[in-house]
């Protein structure tokens, strides 16, 4: 993957792309270690979705905003939150309730053609080649939210595989109507954002499809770095880069200490 010179960092771009898709009044959940997710939600709140509601999954703070990106569960967020909920009360709507959340934003070790999520292991579960951190809320958020976003900070054949080695978050499962056939509520992944482009899922087959490529990225480069055949529309759009106003708000109201550029620059070439 080549170095893509930009006037903004990868973390900033991913936050902007995600924020654009969020609507006012929606409800969202953000887990630990989620700087880009926090930034995206607070950017949407600062711009077009002032009543977006988000809660720190483990910490219970709602809408903590003070222009600094902190880990979502940090105690310091209590002082700038609208509410602090206790986790044993939150489990009812996190782990059981259908469609409480409009969306969640999830990363993965692997995702596949139908947007299933794996954070558990690469290889066989009994003797994995790589043991990942585990599932925690991913199963419930993938299974129960109205939609979810897949946010990948790397785009390569290790991460985009034909079929995930372990389904810990159900996406569109095996495509078509398989998700609802299995008794899961309507939902699944709506967008995938990566350092190379933005992807969605074709409505009938539910297979991953190119929506737009970032500046300087070619479709061949994406194919080379994706372990399955992406659906490709006749005309490939270019991703609308973060504009000056988006970056201004992001840097002056959301991430004033520059957490995103420091932690998420554009990736080096593979």
């Amino acid at each position, binding site marked *: 993957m080549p170095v893509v010179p930009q006037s903004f960092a990868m973390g900033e771009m991913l936050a902007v792309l995600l924020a654009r898709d969020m609507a006012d009044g929606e409800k969202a959940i953000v887990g630990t270690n989620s700087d880009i997710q926090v930034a995206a939600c607070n950017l949407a709140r600062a711009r077009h979705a002032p009543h977006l509601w988000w809660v720190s999954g483990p910490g219970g703070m709602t809408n903590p905003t003070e222009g600094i990106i902190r880990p979502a569960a940090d105690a310091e967020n*209590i002082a700038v939150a609208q509410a*602090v909920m206790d986790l044993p009360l939150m489990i009812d709507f996190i782990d059981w309730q259908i469609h409480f959340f409009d969306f969640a934003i999830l990363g993965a070790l692997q995702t596949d053609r139908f947007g299933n999520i794996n954070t558990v292991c690469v290889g066989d579960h009994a003797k994995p080649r790589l043991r990942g951190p585990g599932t925690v809320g991913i199963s419930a958020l993938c299974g129960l939210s109205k939609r979810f976003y897949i946010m990948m900070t790397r785009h390569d054949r290790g991460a985009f595989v034909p079929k995930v080695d372990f389904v810990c978050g159900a996406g569109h499962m095996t495509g078509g109507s398989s998700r609802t056939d299995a008794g899961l509520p309507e939902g699944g992944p709506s967008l995938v954002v990566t350092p190379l482009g933005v992807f969605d899922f074709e409505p009938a087959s539910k297979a991953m499809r190119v929506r737009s490529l970032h500046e300087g990225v070619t479709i061949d480069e994406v194919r080379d770095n994706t372990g399955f055949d992406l659906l490709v529309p006749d005309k490939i759009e270019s991703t609308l880069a973060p504009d000056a106003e988006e970056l201004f708000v992001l840097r002056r109201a959301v991430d004033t200490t520059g957490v995103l550029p420091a932690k998420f620059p554009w990736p080096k070439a593979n």
Partner: protein
Amino acid sequence: MKTSSGKIVDLATALAAVKDGMTVGIGGWIFHGQPMALIRGLIARGVRDLTLVPAPGSVAPDMLIGAGCVKETACVFISFEHLGLAPNFRRAAQSGAVKVLEMDGPGIAGGLRAGACDLPYGLIPDLGTDLPKVNPNGYRKARVQEGSRPLLEVPAIKPDVLLLHGQQADEEGNVQYFGAGYFDLLMAQAAKHVICSVDRIVPSSTVRQSARLTKIPSAFVDAIVVTPFGAHPGCSPGLYDQDEAHLKTYVAASRDQKSFDSYLDAFVRNGGGEPAYRDKIGAQALAALTSGGAAP
């Protein structure tokens, strides 16, 4: 950019969500946080045939029952404590005018949790009471029993509308409680539509200053009505005490239906809404309740 959340509405707009025949939950606990302005508004609108699911309550369910708005009510606990039995509930239950769905703590807790969790039923222990005999739909022998502990299934409770009262809210719809939250949040998670009255509106910065008091975060509230003294004659914890004198007037007026109708005509059905109600109670009486000297 700063726009209205649209959640702060007037009483009539909020109560338009309540239709005849609906299942209506009521929050608070006995005389604490009874959403009385919402109750009075419903009576003035003349809603009918409600099924009530009140948390342990007092004057809120009792007044709706006495006003003829109720077809049946769940009863976990409806009491006027040191002032005796709930007078209109008692009369309606004894005459059979209102059907009583007898419940207990585990029944409402298990049912609300199942409702909040989108599960068909909750599993609770069989505690050897007569409740399953008089409410067989509410308490079923569990189809799977394990070990030696007998279990019951209680169906999920999902009120169509829930009525709550908190002390203050911000424009976003975050509701703060100065006292206990009781079942209010669990009921809000289980209900389809949540209306909350509050005594006052405060800036969001005030809410953020004490985020731990936000017992009902905005995501769980559909409509907020700002109604000072909206819990009267019950108490609004931390703001004003319950009005013992008015509650005694209420109990006395509840001796028969004719007398209670006169009470309702004077205090609730006079066309003047909450402003008229506050006038009728009087400035000195309301002021005394806020001074800390009127505590029971």
